[in-house]
């Protein structure tokens, strides 16, 4: 982990350390999910590897394939002082647990008049790129952002992955953490974050300062956004790159300040464009900066179709660095 030379730290490693540190510092932190414990491989990609060995089978448990039971168990334990981190292997499988997540986890604090609260974290993985087709890589964050009582976060760097997960575990209310499968593994940083590191929920990161156009994104698309910004910089376009990090509630202050400054906004996400997160952000920017923008807010998102299997179609489905760059060039024209 030397600060010089090639990066060695991946998002996966950061997430794993966040879980280890959280379990070490607070014995009330527990975890459950399919194949999550070490006898079952410590998670299918290894995010939770080592936890059950270190913290025991009582606290760290693999479950049957039963997402309603998984979220239900997390909710119940959280009602009596535990801080469960539940894994739903892939985001598409949140569809079988929506009642537990939306009707219960998100609402119990309110419906009980604040007598109870549900400090759970739901980690789930998704993302295009592996030809897994229509039922394995949807981004569904817009559903949860529309749901009062649950927060949604996603990271595009190891530091943010660590800091967001720690803050999500600290948070007294349910937080959904969306992890991107294709960007788990690439080394991006030199140091694993220190155990005191936190990323405040609701605070976006300005990952690159710029003056011509504001580029808002999150999750894997933020990685593509940084590449795109670098690319168009060569053509003299100065892009301010904002990674929301917290998708709901998103950081209006930071986004609006940047939009005010640049007068041009591009919003990009992997989720289907129609009725996606970009819609709310664009609507708010237009309400708030009416008449102050140089160009209409431009939204990039997934095609209005299920995710296709065939490689060329999958590649065409969502915004990538090249398509984001084109949008940036077009909007400053």
């Amino acid at each position: 982990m030397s600060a010089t030379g090639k990066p060695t730290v991946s998002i996966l490693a950061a997430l794993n350390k966040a879980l280890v540190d959280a379990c070490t510092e607070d014995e009330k932190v527990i975890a459950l999910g399919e194949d999550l414990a070490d006898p079952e491989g410590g998670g299918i990609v290894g995010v939770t590897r080592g936890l059950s060995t270190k913290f025991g089978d009582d606290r760290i448990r693999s479950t049957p394939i039963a997402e309603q039971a998984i979220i239900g168990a997390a909710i119940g334990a959280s009602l009596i002082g535990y801080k469960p981190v539940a894994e739903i292997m892939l985001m598409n499988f949140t569809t079988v647990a929506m009642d537990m997540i939306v009707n219960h986890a998100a609402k119990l604090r309110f419906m009980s008049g604040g007598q109870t609260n549900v400090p759970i974290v739901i980690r789930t993985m998704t993302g295009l790129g592996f030809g897994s087709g229509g039922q394995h890589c949807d981004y569904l964050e817009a559903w949860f952002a529309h749901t009062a009582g649950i927060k949604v976060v996603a990271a595009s760097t190891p530091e943010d992955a660590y800091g967001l997960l720690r803050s999500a575990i600290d948070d007294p209310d349910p937080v959904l953490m969306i992890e991107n499968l294709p960007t788990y593994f690439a080394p991006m940083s030199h140091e694993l974050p220190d155990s005191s590191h936190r990323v405040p929920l609701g605070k976006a990161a300005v990952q690159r300062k710029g003056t011509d156009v504001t580029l808002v994104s999150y999750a894997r698309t933020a990685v593509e956004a940084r590449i795109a910004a670098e690319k168009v910089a060569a053509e003299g376009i100065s892009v301010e790159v904002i990674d929301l990090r917290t998708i709901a509630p998103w950081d209006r202050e930071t986004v609006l300040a940047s939009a005010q400054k640049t007068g041009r906004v591009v919003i990009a996400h992997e989720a289907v464009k129609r009725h996606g997160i970009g819609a709310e952000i664009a609507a708010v920017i237009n309400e708030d900066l009416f008449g102050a923008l140089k160009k209409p807010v431009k939204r990039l998102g997934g095609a209005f179709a299920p995710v296709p299997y065939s490689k060329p179609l999958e590649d065409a489905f969502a915004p990538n660095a090249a398509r984001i760059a084109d949008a940036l060039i077009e909007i400053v024209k």
Partner: protein
Amino acid sequence: MTTNDYVPDASTLLEIYKRVVLLHANDERCRKVITSGKIAMAYYSYRGQEIIPAALSVSLREDDYLCTIYRGIHDMLAKGFPLNELWAELAGRKTGSCKGKGGPMHLTYPAKGIMVTTGVVGSAAPIANGLGWGIQIDKSDRVAVATFGDGASNIGAVHEAMNLASVWKLPVIFLCQNNLFSEHSTYEKMTGGERIADRAAGYGMAGVRVNGNDPVAMYSVAAEAIARARAGEGPTLIEAMTFRFMGHNFGDPGEYIPKDMMAKALANDPVPAFRAKILSDGIATEAELAVIEADVDDQISAAIEFALASPWPELDDLRHDVFAQEIEA
């Protein structure tokens, strides 16, 4: 009916009866108050099912947990839900246990272990498992009870919950109150298999069907299941046979209920039968029961007064309890 070592003594039976009196009187009042127009609410009468939670709850402690459903006020009163906070919540007042935000379908009172009331069929069961998991990590002998209806036995959440409870050996009691109907549908028509209790075997879990209207039988079956859970020997599915006299919800004329079925049920109303047994067994005198019953009526009257005299929530309350942090206006 199964027999075991758990036989209620006279004082236990009297305690069960006292709870039955409270449940029975409170149901009557709810229906009266709605009819009178004093309080408007969605109400799911448990009339006919009083014995079940009364006979169960005498084996529970304050620190045991309960997850119940929209038709669960009987379960909660038996577990100790205080009348003022109950009635104020039913009336939608700020002094209600949920500050008026939850209402009759989401009554909650953690101080007595009443953790969740759900309006979604089946959804109490997976959450009770989590309470059981916490109990297990705590190495405590508390138990968690999830109660639901016969119709709920056919939904996925209950299946997932029972399998997980079995493989994790959780201290959870799954109490299915089989009142023979789910809304307007009969139990026989909607449920495959002879008995819901038989499904427990498929999970490697203890399962028993009992006459939930028989206080002695219900007590013994519940006490055994609770003892099993406290001993760390895992979950039990109890199918308590009963009947709901008042239809699905207030205002349901219940035309779909066969006349003879209803007549037979009414003829076997468990509450007067239990009262008669208390007298004939010499557990209490008519005079003593009259005092108990009058006393309960006064408590309920006082609670209703408290509720109706209580303030409504302020509109600002909409921005609180969504998250720990308030929502900006």
